[in-house]
């Protein structure tokens, strides 16, 4: 890896040279990191190195290779846990397949151990389906009530009435950053009110962790989910962090190997943390890959990553708004300093799919669709938006390419 900072700013050209996808796709303007980021060589090498030199199943063997594999897997857990500020990184950092599985773990475990018919769970209208459907499933199976914090025209949560909304809630689960609006929610403030009301607080940090330093100790959450492939890690790996006192009380989700300390004909005893929540052979290479991704982010520094996010979010908002004015509707906060990660928009008179298609011809990759947030789409009154999302390998040239391609789109269709 190369030195990627100049005066504490990210040197985008150098960052790009860490990501082979760019050398292999010349001219690419990859603006879909909100769906999945690209991977630096470091991550690919860590995974390949593991498979070539150290692979065996973890936690079971007494031979050298098995110990090496276990050591690499557990070391990745430790580093990821420390990266998010866990008090007990080795116990509180649970590997899952992705955010979706982590949130399903939470809903299922709380559903089995803590929730009863009629109990209130509060989420928001800007959640990804991953933080809606698992709760709706509990509503179907055990009759919990799901209630929603509303969203205003600026794409921010309406929390004037928060005490009333969370009153009596058993769980309050919300995103830290909207994957559609780019809104960074006032998570800690909401968490405080929710805790005071006695709720368990869950955070979906899928879009937050890739861009902002998180300190799980101080953010006010009991449980936090995020996903590896949006933060330079491989697919197939995600994380659930939880306060160990709470995790200790939560019943397991999936059953099978590794998650037990004893099994008899008449029952089982669950293993200790974190294994209690990791049934079966885990995604070992993927966990090691995510460990390397976190090392990569640390080597750049979360401060620099965050300033880059703020800078490019502002730039994208201002340049697109400046070029199209009222011809474009940008969703989410009009104050760029409140935005992170993405720019969702509707170009007047052109469907988002057509926008994405013309942009693709200009090697500008954006996503068009409902972004797995259909309730939010309905709230916004659209079926789909086009979304450009950014990461540390994007710079002003990508934003300019986006603006130019949007101009071409407009001329083509209108």
């Amino acid at each position, binding site marked *: 890896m190369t030195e990627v900072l100049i005066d504490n700013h990210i040197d985008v050209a150098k960052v790009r040279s860490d990501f082979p996808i760019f050398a292999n796709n010349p001219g690419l303007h990859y603006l879909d990191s909100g769906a999945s980021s690209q991977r630096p060589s470091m991550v690919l090498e860590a995974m390949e190195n593991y498979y070539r030199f150290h692979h065996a199943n973890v936690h079971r063997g007494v031979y050298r290779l098995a110990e090496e594999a276990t050591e690499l897997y557990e070391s990745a857990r430790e580093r990821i846990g420390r990266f998010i500020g866990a008090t007990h990184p080795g116990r509180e950092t649970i590997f899952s397949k992705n955010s979706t599985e982590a949130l399903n773990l939470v809903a299922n475990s709380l559903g089995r151990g803590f929730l009863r018919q009629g109990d209130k769970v509060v989420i928001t209208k800007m959640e990804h389906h991953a933080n809606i459907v698992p709760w709706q499933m509990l509503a179907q199976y055990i009759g919990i009530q799901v209630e929603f914090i509303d969203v205003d025209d600026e794409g921010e949560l309406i929390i004037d009435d928060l005490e009333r909304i969370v009153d009596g809630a058993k769980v309050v689960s919300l995103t830290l950053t909207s994957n559609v609006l780019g809104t960074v929610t006032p998570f800690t403030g909401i968490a405080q009110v929710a805790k005071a009301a006695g709720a368990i607080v869950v955070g979906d940090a899928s879009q937050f962790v890739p861009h902002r330093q998180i300190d799980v100790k101080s953010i006010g959450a009991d449980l936090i989910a995020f996903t590896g492939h949006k933060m330079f890690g491989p697919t197939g790996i995600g994380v659930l962090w939880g306060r160990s006192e709470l995790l200790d009380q939560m019943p397991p989700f999936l059953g099978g190997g590794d998650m037990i300390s004893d099994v008899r004909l008449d029952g089982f005893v669950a293993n200790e943390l974190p294994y209690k929540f990791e049934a079966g052979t885990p995604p070992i290479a993927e966990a090691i890959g995510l460990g390397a991704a976190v090392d990569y982010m640390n080597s750049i520094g979360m401060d620099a990553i965050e300033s880059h996010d703020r800078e490019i979010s502002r730039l994208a908002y201002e340049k697109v708004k400046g070029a199209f004015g009222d011809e474009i509707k940008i969703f989410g906060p009009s104050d760029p300093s409140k935005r992170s990660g993405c720019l969702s928009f509707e170009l007047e008179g052109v*469907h988002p*799919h057509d926008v994405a*298609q013309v942009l693709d011809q200009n090697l500008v990759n954006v996503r068009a669709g409902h972004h797995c947030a*259909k309730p939010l789409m309905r709230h916004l009154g659209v*079926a789909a938006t086009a979304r450009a999302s950014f990461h540390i390998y994007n710079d002003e040239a990508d934003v300019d390419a986006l603006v130019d391609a949007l101009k071409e789109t407009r001329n*083509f269709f209108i």
Partner: protein
Amino acid sequence: MQGLEDLYREIILDHYKNPRNSGTLEVPPAHQADGYNPLCGDEISIYVNYDGERITDIKNSGQGCSISRSSASLMTNAVKGKTIAEARETIKTFKRLLLLDEEGEKSEPVEIDLRKLGELAALQGVSKFPARIKCATLAWNTFTQIVDELDLQIDGAND
């Protein structure tokens, strides 16, 4: 790489900007079917008046991209006035045009007489853009629901 002109032929843009047979019909007597594409949120409703022999009127309403909307417009034009058997034949030809078999699975190219297809031929380019095939087929699959329903009624009447 395929050029944009392959996808967005002039006829397609024309049907997108000036949709034909757009609107609704009173149900009943009209038959209605709704379709939507869960991937992109496109929605469509198709309304058909059938006099026992022919499709006397057809309308569609909904929202979607240029491919999905123009395909609906082109389809309504193509099947209006047809018998059920003729409409089925048109559906089949349209699917072949997009290199799909009757089940909607990918198939080998089959020789088609493009002249007989009229404006529908404009949709041929969509086959080169796999991500957009679902947009083009939405209206047709929704219309097929009505055709199936009418077929059942005809079968029932013949019993």
